């Protein structure tokens, strides 16, 4: 039996693998063999893994393409495979029950994929798959026929700005490095991605590592560097593995090494593993770390383009920034700058998480209203509760309250409302989230990750945390909110690096938009009923059936009551663990 043009793509990003992607792939292989069509598989049916396509919540996602007709299955388990093979591949009738629904399509509808255009569609471990889509053509074109200044001209004209947080124009950075007369220069890719909840860069490397490598080659050629590094966190084993494989494949094809594309240009890339410090994502700390020193930032100027790794001119770019480059060269500056706003061109990848229905990885044109991200792509709030705010930019960012949901998502607009695009974390918060608690959570992270070098960050963030900590424990004092504001402003002004300069942002923006929540805490109430010390648990007379479940669940023996009679919580004994609240089937336990 002959099967024409059948392609099976199994999602094998970190999310896909966690959901059982490898087992699903094995099942397909076994099933195809058992159906006696194995021999044909080699010739006519292509099966391969693909990187993350964004909607990890529905993993394992599998595309089955028969004669150019793509059907996507969700939540695929190994035991579902035989039916898919039999009905869809052999009998040509897709298994309707398991096909993705509208939400999957809506998730993708308003997205615009540039950086992720090949992620989730090509096999990241197959260099030929990348080459088949014109991979490495941009690098070839540039190296064999363009002057470095022209490449930089194209990047400048495209309006590409750094995706690592600061939004610095990439072409301008490259130009400054190009103009340095030093013989030795370095090109570094920053893949440290340490923000809690962020996985954009990981997905790009896991899904399409060659785009990043090609971007680095083009960058290195433009600035005149023969040596590059990818600084990647060791906590990303799959990304590291795929990157290493991609590097050695590229080397084998002559895209890296001596005399690339038959020219005199040589360039090679080393992988340097980070040891799990958030601050090592900061460029000068990253350089210190590569040099074998403690990852502590140093004062700028001088900037790395003038004096970077081992004192040599060095360009550091984010993964996503670099992955944009080959697509810009292939399609032209104008194509890229047609997306986005006047000052923020192109697209941005975000990791959409929190209380959102479709959490996952998205890529949207710059300037898209936040509302469209939340309600069209994200499918709205879980349980259809009310949206309270969206935290963008991770621990360095700020929150945008629900009433500002029409804010366009681009560098300028987010800065204007007191937040940042940052590296692309986007956490959706609903009415059950306490903003004070949320600010405390992010601050806890930055405080712990402070490198300890400078006073305002090392001691200042600790003091902020102590003050906000006493507020959430109901021990706040009159004037504490003002003290938070004052200390935050001073930390921002006086800190050495971006970590300290932005660490107070979550506090400042929550005070700006949710000052009433802080005031309520000072008066001993947590409006969202989150801050444990401020809660009181009580039993609602009208709902209590006297089943005794809460009484048995309470570890502190704070609950009394006879069978079938109203139960009672003694607030003096209650340790506010919430066990009664969780266990009551009749919603008879309340908290406030």
């Amino acid at each position, binding site marked *: 039996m002959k099967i024409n043009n059948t392609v099976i793509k199994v999602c094998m990003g970190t999310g896909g693998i966690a959901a059982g992607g490898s087992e699903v792939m094995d099942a397909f292989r076994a099933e195809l063999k058992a159906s006696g069509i194995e021999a044909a598989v080699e010739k006519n049916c292509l099966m391969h893994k693909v990187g993350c396509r964004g909607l990890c919540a529905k993993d394992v996602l599998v595309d089955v393409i028969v004669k150019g007709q793509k059907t996507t299955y969700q939540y695929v388990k190994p035991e579902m495979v035989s039916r898919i093979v039999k009905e869809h591949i052999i009998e040509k009738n897709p298994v309707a029950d398991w096909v993705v629904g509208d939400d999957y399509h809506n998730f993708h509808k308003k997205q615009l994929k540039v950086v992720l255009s090949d992620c989730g569609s090509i096999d990241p471990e197959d260099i030929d798959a990348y080459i088949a889509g014109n991979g490495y053509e941009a690098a070839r074109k540039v190296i064999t026929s363009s002057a470095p200044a022209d490449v930089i001209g194209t990047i400048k004209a495209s309006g590409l700005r750094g995706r690592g947080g600061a939004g610095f124009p990439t072409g301008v950075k490259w130009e400054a490095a190009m103009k340095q007369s030093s013989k030795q220069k370095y090109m570094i890719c920053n893949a440290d991605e340490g923000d809690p909840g962020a996985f954009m860069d990981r997905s790009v490397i896991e899904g399409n590592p060659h785009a990043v490598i090609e971007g680095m080659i083009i960058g290195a050629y433009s600035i005149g560097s023969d040596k590059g590094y990818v600084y990647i966190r060791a906590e990303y084993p799959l990304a590291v593995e795929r990157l290493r494989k991609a590097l050695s494949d590229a080397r084998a094809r002559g895209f890296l090494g001596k005399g690339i594309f038959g020219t005199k240009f040589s360039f090679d890339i080393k992988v340097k593993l980070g040891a799990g*410090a958030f*601050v090592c994502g900061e460029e000068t700390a990253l350089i210190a770390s590569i040099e074998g020193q*403690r990852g*502590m930032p*140093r*004062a700028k*100027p*001088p900037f790395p383009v003038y004096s970077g790794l081992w004192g040599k001119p060095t360009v550091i770019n984010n993964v996503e920034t670099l992955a944009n480059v080959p697509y810009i060269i292939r399609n032209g500056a104008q194509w890229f700058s047609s997306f986005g706003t006047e000052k923020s061109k192109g697209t941005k990848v975000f990791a959409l998480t929190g209380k959102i229905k479709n959490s996952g990885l998205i890529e949207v044109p710059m300037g898209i209203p936040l509302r469209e991200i939340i309600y069209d792509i994200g499918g709205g709030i879980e349980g259809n509760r009310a949206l309270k705010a969206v935290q963008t930019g991770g621990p360095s960012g700020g929150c945008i309250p629900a009433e500002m949901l029409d804010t366009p998502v681009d560098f300028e607009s987010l800065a204007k409302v007191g937040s940042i695009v940052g590296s692309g974390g986007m956490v959706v918060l609903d009415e059950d989230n306490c903003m004070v608690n949320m600010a405390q959570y992010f601050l806890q992270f930055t*405080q*712990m*990750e*402070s*490198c*300890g*070098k*400078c*006073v*305002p960050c*090392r*001691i*200042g*963030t*600790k*003091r902020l945390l*102590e003050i906000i900590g006493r507020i959430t424990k109901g021990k706040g004092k009159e004037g504490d909110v003002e*003290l938070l504001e*004052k*200390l935050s402003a*001073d930390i921002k*002004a*006086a*800190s*050495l690096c971006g970590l300290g*300069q932005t660490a107070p942002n979550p506090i400042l923006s929550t005070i700006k938009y949710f000052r009433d929540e802080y005031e309520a805490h000072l008066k001993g109430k947590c409006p969202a009923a989150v801050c444990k010390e401020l809660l009181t648990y009580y039993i609602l007379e009208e709902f209590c059936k006297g089943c005794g479940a809460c009484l048995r669940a309470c570890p502190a023996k704070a609950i009394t009551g006879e069978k079938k009679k109203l139960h009672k919580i003694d607030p003096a004994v209650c340790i506010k663990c919430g066990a009664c609240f969780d266990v009551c089937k009749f919603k008879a336990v309340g908290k406030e």
Partner: protein
Amino acid sequence: MIRLTIDNKAIEVAEGTTVLDAAKMLNIEIPTLCHHPKLTPFGGCRLCIVEVKGVPRPLTSCTTPVSEGMEVATSTPALEDLRKTLLELILSDHPNDCMICEKAGDCTLQELAYFYGIRENRFEGERRIYEKKDGNPFIERDMGKCILCGRCVKVCDEIQGVGAIDFAYRGFKSKICPTFEKDLDCEFCGQCVAVCPTGALTGKMWQLRGRQKDINAIDTTCSYCGTGCNITLHVRNNKVVRVTSKENTWNEGWLCVKGRFGYSFINSPDRLKKPLIRIAPKESIKGSKGQSLKNSDTLTLGRSDTCDFSAIFREASWDEALDYIAAKLKEIKERSGADSIAGLSSARCTTEENYLFQKFIRAAVGTNNVDHCARL
């Protein structure tokens, strides 16, 4: 040359000069804590911040190189307010210990707290507490007083080339410590002590011996070796209580363990102050308890606690001793020839003294058998 103005005063300085150094040339004082002129810039304390026209955030003057046309302001209400916050933050994590702190009176932090009038602290909170564990006899580390200025780390690495200590941990828990937080086990040169701006690092033997202001400072030369570092003896009640070295000396204020900590001999009861002439043969030396001594024991010969040497030596005047030596040398030379004599001089002598000594052995004694215990 680069032209700039600092607090409206114009100055022209060489390229690469920092704003801090340029200000110094204009006699404009900018508070600093982590900066040390002989070490690479650190930029951690943030006290030296200045405003530069056209730059949105304050810059640390100790790390920022001058640039053409720069307009710098070193003291504005906003800057002074920030400095006050910074000092309050440092002091919020610092023991209130000036009363009995070895460093009081010579402490940069104390001085700044005084100038900024810091008494109440808006940011009181948790403090770092460290157990003391140093068993060495030289360096007292009271790390609760450490402000993490990094000077000790830099001096140990950049000047001493030892690298015995470094930063460890992150955030508020950051601290300076030896590898794996072991006990300090290094050269004990005390360079770190010399550059520490606070009482975190002090000399163990300095303790409770006298404040900086209570001493008579006497500049002299270290007698340990031919290098001849300039040192300053801190003398109180006619006793040396501390040794330091000034930055404007030829040795730039740097010393080694001997020069800095090896001064207990000065007031030691065992110190020889006059020549001694032997009055009884070596074999007759008895231990302090009357026992006969083995050969190895004679290594400690002369220490009053190991043997009673008044039975073997008697004090003499220099004239008598020198005459005695001259007579003996002559006698040996006549009996066995000049080459039966050899001269070995000391590294603790000056070059001039060593020159004279070899001249004496060669010209007066008449042999080339002359050497020196160290070849620095």
